[in-house]
């Protein structure tokens, strides 16, 4: 039996078309884009091509709104620290939802250690940001508020447009982490009123080692990596051109195929959710309808997630993910699952399935059977 990869929220495989495209840079135009000779100019064209494709994916005002970084973690750090530090004269308050990725929460906490006031906004049991609480903490001193477009662990899509309106009523900038959403669902930064948006290459079938940050014209931020002045002086260092070229092509493919792919994956996702919820004491985590089209996440009582993951992988060659403490570096359950109100023992039993291009409708019965048997096996072992 072949492998069934259901962990696309952790990393997507590089699309062969992306690889073929980016390879052209390594083979022919390997110059440093800052060099003025023909190879440098050739390399520069690759970067500008990628910038254009990413700008199109999210409907940015112009290509120059896109800055390339080493990855989404750096983009989040640049967006948050870059704006907070640059606009410190306007205020020293920042805000983020409780379910943000660690690459948002930890830069925020770093600012807090350096004298900023950090407001963490709670979410409801489906993962939607509490808008009333958000409105309550925002002040004219709030320079950056960071809310994700969609959550990677529970699939919930946030009401970004509404959030943007609230943020701009009192505060300065809205940063949106779109790692899980970009290339998956339509994003329009102008219509949504987004000031800064993070995109990851390796979450949309691009190579690892590249990320992008959209910066709305007029947004003031400073570099967190000063040096030779690449990327408008906001991100110095020789560009990772292979990854950037690939990321651009990945964005193009994602945009071109999004509608068709979403229709296909949504059907598989709905079927998986219907069938898996037939298992006794199984529950959906995240929002039932406001969720990513490729995302199905669950929890099962009386069993533990790392065991689910191991058994699925070893017995059935199916790769899944979990928010259980036992699979994390900190041995704490996922902060996202705790934020939606799960108890520790409930959060331990989580399983996340994220679909992608390799998955087919025919795999549904195989996956469902594997999940059923795994839950059954582990419950037999469980004293609970």
């Amino acid at each position, binding site marked *: 039996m072949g492998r069934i990869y259901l962990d696309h929220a952790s990393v997507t495989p590089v699309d062969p078309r992306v690889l073929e495209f980016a390879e052209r840079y390594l083979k022919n135009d390997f110059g440093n884009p800052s060099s003025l000779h023909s190879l440098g100019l050739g390399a520069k064209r690759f970067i500008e091509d990628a910038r254009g494709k990413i700008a199109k994916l999210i409907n940015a005002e112009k290509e120059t709104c896109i800055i390339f970084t080493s990855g989404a973690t750096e983009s989040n750090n640049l967006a948050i620290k870059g704006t907070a530090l640059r606009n410190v004269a306007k205020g020293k308050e920042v805000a983020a939802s409780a379910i943000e990725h660690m690459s948002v929460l930890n830069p925020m906490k770093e600012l807090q250690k350096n004298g900023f006031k950090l407001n963490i906004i709670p979410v409801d049991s489906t993962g939607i940001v509490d808008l009333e609480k958000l409105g309550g903490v925002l002040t004219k001193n709030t320079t950056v508020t960071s809310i994700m477009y969609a959550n990677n662990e529970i699939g919930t899509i946030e009401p970004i447009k509404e959030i943007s309106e609230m943020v701009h009523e009192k505060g300065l900038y809205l940063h949106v982490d779109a790692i899980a959403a970009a290339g998956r669902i339509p994003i329009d930064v102008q219509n949504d009123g987004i000031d800064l948006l993070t995109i990851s290459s390796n979450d949309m079938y691009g190579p690892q080692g590249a990320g992008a940050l959209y910066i709305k014209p007029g947004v003031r931020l400073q570099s967190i990596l000063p040096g030779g002045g690449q990327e408008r002086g906001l991100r110095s260092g020789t560009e990772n051109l292979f990854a950037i070229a690939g990321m651009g092509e990945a964005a193009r493919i994602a945009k071109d195929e999004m509608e068709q792919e979403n229709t296909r994956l949504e059907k598989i996702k709905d079927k998986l959710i219907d069938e898996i919820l037939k298992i006794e004491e199984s529950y959906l985590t995240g929002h039932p309808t406001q969720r990513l089209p490729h995302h199905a996440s669950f929890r099962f009582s009386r069993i533990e997630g790392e065991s689910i993951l191991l058994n699925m992988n*070893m017995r059935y060659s199916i790769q899944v993910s979990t928010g259980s403490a036992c699979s994390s570096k900190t041995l704490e359950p996922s902060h996202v699952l705790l934020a939606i109100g799960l108890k520790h023992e409930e959060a331990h039993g989580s399983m996340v399935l994220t679909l992608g291009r390799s998955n087919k409708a025919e795999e549904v019965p195989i996956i469902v059977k594997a999940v059923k048997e795994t839950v059954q096996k582990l419950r037999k072992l469980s004293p609970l």
Partner: protein
Amino acid sequence: MAQIGYSEKVLEHFMNPRNVGTIEKPDGYGKVGNPVCGDLMEMYIRVKDDIISDIKFKTFGCGSAIATSSMVTEMVKGMNLDKAMKITRNDVADELDGLPPQKMHCSNLAADALHEAIKDYKRKKEVKK
């Protein structure tokens, strides 16, 4: 997809755990851990002439919690109680060709569960006297 750095032996015991189940009216019963922390183990023993003649377990927890439970039951079946009392967490981990460092503390409670079962047996014996 990481296997969280588990040895082949841990994975083998996890996939095919030995001595799963319960013993009716056991001579000794031990329970350690807490579902809040993600690990809970129950150990049941049958004792004959100070020797563990049968042992069963039930475990809620991660791969290493299940593997260490299975391993400890295999190690002590047929062993006398004094010797079994001396088995440490490290002994169990060694028998499994080691555990990842972050698992040594939280998911390596099987020896403790065994010791609790033996103490329970001894307490019951005292009462009978």
